[in-house]
């Protein structure tokens, strides 16, 4: 049957050639629907309770999409006229940023004080160039002693200061005809970034003494896009080049290399075109798919082309050679494509939508590669001219002596490999969860460098927000509530991870002092509810545009937001402090208990959530792939045995990871399921050849091992090297989710080869008696199939 197909493929090669190109183009036209989404929210599924808590918080208070501009004067002095004038100027200009709704800086900080028994609320300073030395000293004193400013807008050492621009991005926009349509968040972000970078270059040109650093949520979102652009322009060409060189070295045929190039390009284009038709959004993880598809598609081509070329070298006509190659390779290529696709499809159980998308796009790419390999490749390859080259390969000899060595040392290998495997698997728990989103980017990305500077010099980038809800309207002014919030704030400030706590109680104590002629003894909470409410009313009435209290208090004065800024700490430490805060609230303020919400918290949980959600995905993939193996090998005993070379590599790789890196999280949670479908290919090839020798040729276990090595040893070696190389290219990504995934996948594939070469053969020999207990039945069945 397969032979029939192979012959008709050659007969209809022109039709297939054109049909393939047409199909590819139809699929590719879906690309018009593709757009890149750089919003960090896409990493969370809509029913994520922490995302929900965070969205509620965003709907209640001023949103916290922001850009932080940090101004660092070279001499490290903020409180001098030049620097303060620059801050004042930049603050004014910052209001021009698209979508800005609020700007906070030293200059427009609404300082309240008692003046002639009245409360004065005004900018901390104005017209900085005219400030006297006394003024400067007074302003410095106020700023460094104000809890709302220190560690937030001004560093403790007074050497850097920040300007915070808050944005509100509309979800819908109206075009010129007044028609409402959905806004493009990626475009909005890039509009802001363009303006903010213009502002940065303005500052550095006008005030050469000042260096500017940019961070904030908007810059984070932008970094996802920039990291992807960097990767696309650096990694993709590198991967392509590497693969073409490998293929050429292997096949020694220019036509073969061109054919391979066409197949892999077609596969990538088809996968992304289909993604467009399916409405899949592009994101940084999805953009690792081109390299993955390229790498995997090569294997199909190499298998078919190498058999074809070797048949030609043995004197066959190129059409007949292709028929033979297809006959031999159709089943293995089909099975390996199927298992690989299943591995990727299992990513659909991931909790993070971008990884589901990655799984689906890669699976479509793998299946497209299969289709193009069996229809398009034979057509184009037989149409291109082939130059014959007689070449003796020495590798075959190397393989057979390697087989001898494995058989001779089987006992030592069995014990040695098993102990190494166990040892590495035992190391797995040393890995620590870490999903620190700033570290998703490496130093090549500006966001990472600037954010590192800010967290070293001014304030933390990680925070947790608590929306404290009371029972009734206006309860925020209740003395008991305020006392409890203050207690909470004071406790938070004693925690080692905490840099800053932004709390409304600081405003109330300051107002109370102002209302009593700035008497320091009144720097405490107001005594009665009415006093607190009325002071707050007076203060609110005095605030200018954009600087209202809605960033801290809801419209009903029923809830207040407390923002806890943390040092740069690991995910584990974030989870620790979250738990500690929960416990403290349970014990001390159970009625006011709130759950922590923020991107930091959401990312802190994302790794573990995904590891748990991927357990089911990995299990499903494992069961399906094992069933396919049982079917392919026609023996449940061999199917069972194959679990060892399929699962052990991932286990060992995580053990090695514990030694070389030790941090796992979102990206690595998908590696086991993803690699399962890839490493199983080696097992299929090795075991099927082994079984053919054992069953058809009636060879003993050791001779069957020799046969397997001599037939597929070289091919396995070469495809594994190509795969490892491809994923190592991914490992150089500037985006940690992709680079970590690439590196670990490369390790898994390398170990899989080692296990297939060094552990599987000794196992097959050792367990031969058990494996072939019920072989008589299968052998007859096989013989029947064979004769058909």
């Amino acid at each position, binding site marked *: 049957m397969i032979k029939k197909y192979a012959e008709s493929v050659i007969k209809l090669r022109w039709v297939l050639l054109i049909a393939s190109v047409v199909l590819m183009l139809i699929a590719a036209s879906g690309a018009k629907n593709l757009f890149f989404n750089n919003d960090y929210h896409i990493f969370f599924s809509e029913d994520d309770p922490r995302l929900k808590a965070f969205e509620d918080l965003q*709907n209640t208070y001023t949103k916290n999409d922001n850009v932080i501009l940090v101004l660092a004067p070279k001499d490290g002095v903020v409180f001098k006229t030049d620097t303060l004038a620059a801050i004042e100027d930049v603050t004014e200009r910052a209001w021009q940023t698209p*979508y800005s709704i609020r700007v906070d800086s030293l200059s427009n900080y609404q300082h309240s004080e008692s003046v002639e028994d009245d*409360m004065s609320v005004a900018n901390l300073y104005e017209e900085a160039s005219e400030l006297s030395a006394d003024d400067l000293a007074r302003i410095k004193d106020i700023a460094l002693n104000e809890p709302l400013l220190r560690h937030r807008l001004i560093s403790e050492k007074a050497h850097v200061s920040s300007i915070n621009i808050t944005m*509100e991005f509309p979800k819908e926009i109206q075009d010129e005809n007044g028609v409402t349509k959905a806004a493009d968040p990626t475009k909005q972000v890039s509009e802001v970034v363009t303006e903010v970078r213009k502002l940065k270059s303005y500052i550095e040109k006008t005030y050469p003494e000042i260096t500017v650093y940019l961070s904030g949520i908007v810059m984070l979102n932008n970094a996802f896009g920039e990291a992807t652009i960097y990767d696309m322009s650096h990694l993709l060409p590198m991967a392509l080049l590497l693969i073409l060189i490998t293929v050429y070295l292997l096949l020694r045929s220019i036509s073969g290399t061109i054919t391979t190039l066409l197949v892999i390009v077609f596969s990538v284009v088809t996968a992304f075109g289909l993604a467009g038709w399916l409405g899949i959004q592009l994101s940084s993880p999805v953009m690792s798919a081109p390299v993955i598809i390229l790498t995997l598609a090569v294997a199909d081509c190499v298998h078919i082309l190498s058999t074809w070329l070797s048949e030609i070298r043995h004197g066959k006509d190129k059409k007949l050679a292709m028929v033979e190659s297809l006959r031999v390779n159709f089943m293995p290529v089909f099975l390996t494509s199927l298992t690989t696709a299943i591995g990727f499809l299992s990513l659909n159980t991931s909790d993070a939508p971008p990884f589901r998308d990655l799984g689906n796009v890669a699976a479509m790419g793998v299946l497209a590669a299969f289709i193009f390999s069996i229809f398009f490749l034979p057509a184009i390859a037989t149409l291109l001219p082939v130059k014959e080259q007689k070449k003796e390969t020495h590798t075959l000899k190397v393989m057979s002596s390697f087989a001898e060595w494995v058989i001779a040392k089987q006992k030592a290998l069995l014990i040695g490999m098993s102990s190494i495997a166990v040892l590495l698997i035992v190391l797995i728990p040393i890995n620590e969860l870490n999903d620190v989103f700033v570290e998703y980017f490496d130093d090549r990305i500006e966001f990472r460098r600037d954010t590192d500077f800010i967290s070293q010099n001014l304030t933390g980038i990680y925070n947790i927000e608590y929306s404290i809800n009371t029972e009734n309207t206006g309860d925020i*002014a209740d003395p008991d509530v305020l006392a409890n919030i203050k207690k909470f704030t004071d406790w938070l400030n004693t925690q080692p991870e905490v840099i800053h706590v932004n709390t409304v109680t600081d405003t109330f104590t300051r107002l109370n002092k102002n209302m009593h002629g700035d008497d320091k003894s009144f720097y405490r909470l107001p005594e009665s509810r009415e006093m607190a409410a009325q002071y707050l009313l007076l203060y609110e009435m*005095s605030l200018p545009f954009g600087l209202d209290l809605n960033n801290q*208090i809801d419209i009903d004065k029923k809830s207040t937001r407390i923002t806890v800024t943390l040092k740069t700490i690991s995910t584990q430490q974030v989870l620790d402090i979250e738990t500690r805060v929960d416990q403290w609230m349970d014990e001390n303020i159970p009625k006011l208990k709130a759950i922590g919400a923020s991107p930091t918290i959401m990312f802190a949980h994302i790794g573990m959530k995904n590891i748990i959600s991927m357990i089911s995905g990995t299990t499903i993939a494992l069961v399906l792939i094992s069933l396919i193996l049982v079917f392919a090998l026609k023996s449940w005993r061999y199917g069972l045995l194959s679990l060892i070379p399929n699962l052990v590599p991932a286990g060992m790789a995580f053990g090695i990871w514990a030694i070389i890196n030790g941090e796992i999280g979102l990206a690595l949670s998908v590696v086991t399921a993803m690699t399962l479908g890839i490493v199983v290919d080696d097992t299929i090839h090795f075991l099927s050849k082994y079984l053919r020798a054992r069953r058809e040729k009636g060879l003993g276990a050791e001779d069957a091992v020799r046969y397997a090595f001599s037939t597929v040893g070289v091919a396995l070696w070469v495809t594994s090297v190509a795969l490892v190389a491809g994923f190592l290219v991914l490992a150089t990504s500037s985006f940690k989710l992709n680079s970590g995934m690439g590196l670990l996948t490369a390790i898994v594939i390398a170990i899989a080869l080692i296990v297939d070469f060094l552990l599987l053969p000794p196992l097959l020999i050792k367990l031969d008696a058990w494996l072939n207990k019920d072989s008589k039945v299968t052998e007859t069945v096989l013989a029947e199939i064979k004769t058909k």
Partner: protein
Amino acid sequence: MKIKLLLATVLTVSSLGLYAETPAEKGLKIAQAADVSDQGFSDFTANMVMTLKNRAGKTSRRIIRIKTLEGKGDGDKSLSLFDEPADVKGTAMLTFSHGLKPDDQWLYLPALKRVKRINSRNKSGPFMGSEFAFEDLGSQEVEKYTYKYLKEEACGSGWKCHVVERTPAYKYSGYTKQVAWIDTKEYRPVKVMYYDRKNSLLKTLNATGFKQYAGKHWRPATMAMQNHQTGKSTILQWTNYKFKTGLNNRDFNKKSLAR
């Protein structure tokens, strides 16, 4: 034919010459006419219910009684008495509005039993956390803006409106410009669009339910302010308008606040 054409041209040119007002002049004229049309109300009192709504759809209510005394030569004087929320009941605010000078404002705090001056160059800030800024609610003196007439178009319930762009003359205003729809017949302000400092549309005010009081003065029953950037909104509902109630300057001083 030729003569007719010539005549038409001459007429057109001369009419252009006659009414060759610049848009600025025409805008100013409309503002002045609007000002004149409401002159002579001497004083009025009214009740106001203010309902705030946030993005999540949660609402919050404030209730305020307003007394206003017409200014002679200078801006109006007004007294706002807060009834709700309960925590600020009895709080009262006195405002002497001026043209380009900052307004004078005092707040009586019953909890402290003291009158405190509000240092208020900050007219751009929100009034009681609402989407209305002080400058939206204060009396609209002619000299607070420069004007530019834009066009005439249909508005409200079958009315015609002058559309006038006005640029705040006040340095600390929160806006770069406002576009106001004022009906051609009675000079009722039907709609105002506010543009923020980066000249983006910030919010829109729609006034409806206009009624005439004391045979002359038109006041709306509802003023709805929608913030386009934050999705928050505020609705003011006015009831119990009374004109010419006999209020005088003695009702509008610091002492009167505590009553």
